[in-house]
């Protein structure tokens, strides 16, 4: 066992619809990179630029293939006194944030995600580097989670 695995974690996974959002975003990027590469080759005849853009397009394609797995790897768990969050397969990251450290909770909705009824919840503490952003929550779930986080943070309020 070489991966990080937390023994007693029961993850709540995010909505599978997030796959569609991320696929669309990554797909648009792939189309732009591939199109620009083709244009560089056929219209401008700049070989090095075409090769660079082709490399970017291949990267975007790999990214596209990995999107579903990456979305499945995102998870969070509401523990007794803190919020546990994980994401990443190749680059794994686990964060534990005590509820009392909460400064504010943001809910953001991008244009594509809003079309599918998804929201992104951002848990902000006094530390800039914590970066706990849970994407792909159904709107009702996100609001419920926000209200829950605010209420538990209120009962466990700590100083800075």
């Amino acid at each position, binding site marked *: 066992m*070489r991966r*990080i695995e937390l*023994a007693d974690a029961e993850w709540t996974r995010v909505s599978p619809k997030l796959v569609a959002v991320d696929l669309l975003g990554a797909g648009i990027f792939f189309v732009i990179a591939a199109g620009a590469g083709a244009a560089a080759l056929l219209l401008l005849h700049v070989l090095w630029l075409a090769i660079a853009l082709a490399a970017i397009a291949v990267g975007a394609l790999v990214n596209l293939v990995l999107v579903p797995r990456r979305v499945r790897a995102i998870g969070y768990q509401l523990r007794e006194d803190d919020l546990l969050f994980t994401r990443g397969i190749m680059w794994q*990251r686990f964060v*534990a944030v005590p509820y*009392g450290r909460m400064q504010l909770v943001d809910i953001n909705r991008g244009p594509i995600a809003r079309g599918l009824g998804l929201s992104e919840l951002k848990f902000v503490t006094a*530390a800039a580097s914590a970066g706990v952003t849970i994407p792909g929550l159904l709107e009702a779930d996100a609001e419920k989670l926000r209200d829950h986080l605010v209420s538990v943070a209120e009962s466990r309020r*700590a*100083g800075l």
Partner: protein
Amino acid sequence: MNAGASQLSDGEWHRLHPASPLLKGGIVFIAILGAVVANLRERLLGLFVPRLDDQGNPIDYILGHGYVIQALLVIIVVLLVLIGGFYVSWRMHSFRITHEVVEVRSGVFIRTNRKARLDRIQGVNIVRPLLARVFGAAKLEIDQAGHDANLQLSYLDTRAADQLRKEILRLASGSRAADASANSAGVAPGSLIDRRLEEFTAPHHDADTPPESIVTMHLGRLLGSMILGTGSVIAILLIAGAAVWISLTGDLFILFLAFPSVIGFGSYYVRRFTRSLRYSISGTPDGVRVGWGLLSTTNETLPPGRIHSIEVSQPLFWRPFGWWEVRVNRASHSRTRGADNQANTTLLPVGNLTEVTKVLELMLPELVGAESVSMIERGLRSRGGDDGFENSPRRAAWLRPFSWRRNGFLVTPGSFVMRRGAVLRSFTIVPKPRLQSVAIEQGPVLRMLRLADLHLHTVHGPIRPHLDVVDLDVATRLFGTVSAAAVAAGQIDTSHRWRAGEAAS
């Protein structure tokens, strides 16, 4: 306004030192106006009095044509408008201190009102620029968490500022005990001149308890630390590079490019030197007091529990001398940055092991006793091995060929301790109640070696507490221990009202 501080903190609105507008830039304004008038008086007068050109000297012109009264009137009106403006802005600038908040309102046309909660105070700063010291005035700055969220009272009478700091800290500490000594802010005997002289020479004026500094700055060590610091090494490399360039090409043009940076380096060193020469640090009942500055002085009080992380580090060339630097992460980011425009994150500019230990004991009161002294010593100087720290495994040598033996973590009763680096050694302490969150991360290379990185998140600052290449099982266990300890410590922490638990006496 020589009112005692007991009156200043009575919850009513008060005004600042009457010389404040002058100290805040009025003198500069008048000097500029004077310079402009002195240089351009003929042109200026020429604008209003076209016939002046025939005459030459305007004074002769005024005297010769009997315009003395008009000229004097103009000068008087300008002065009156200036004084009136200053007076109005001074009248409109007032502050009050209650049991919960410090509040300042200012501005003539655009009114601003700023309130600072006393239990969120991150530090109280008394700054005395050179000019203000001559007037016996001082600037009181109340540090709040957040970017540029500080509250400034500039300027106050020096005595009033000292008393006010004491009162603010007393109110903020949550101690409800009536402080009788606060009423003793009487006027000292002696003439005005004597008082000014006494205030000017006293380094950190404090009416009743001038605290003894636990560290004294030696001139030789300060100079040595600056010459051997990282900045100087870079400067020497640059000079060597420029010398080689000139000798190879014979082109002296590079000297013109170097000139501004030489001035920059020079002023940086002079500032740092004058700032650090009269450095002092001492413990008071309401926090650690750090003093800086030779001509313009800063004197900062950090209440307990306002330090989010401490790092002791050593630039390469300090090593033969055993010198260390102590820096901290704090929640407040002051834009004025204290005296001489330096960031207020350096706690000890240079010190040896004994002094570093003293400073750490002062900052983190739970680190007391022979055991923690030896822990600090091991944290700073140990080469690694079986010495109480959880060190990285041998396979971490692939990524940290020199420092893997030393790269270790330790959980003490009050804090998390990390030590890193064999060449550039550093030692980081995060007090448990100040930890914001904790993370473990692993990329593909670390996965192959069964390692992981551990990150402790605190407020933004020069220190980024983390420990790389930890054994995977140890990292997972530490992640659990640290997150549980952070929750527990956060819930019992009362340092925002640090004396609330004490019985009123």
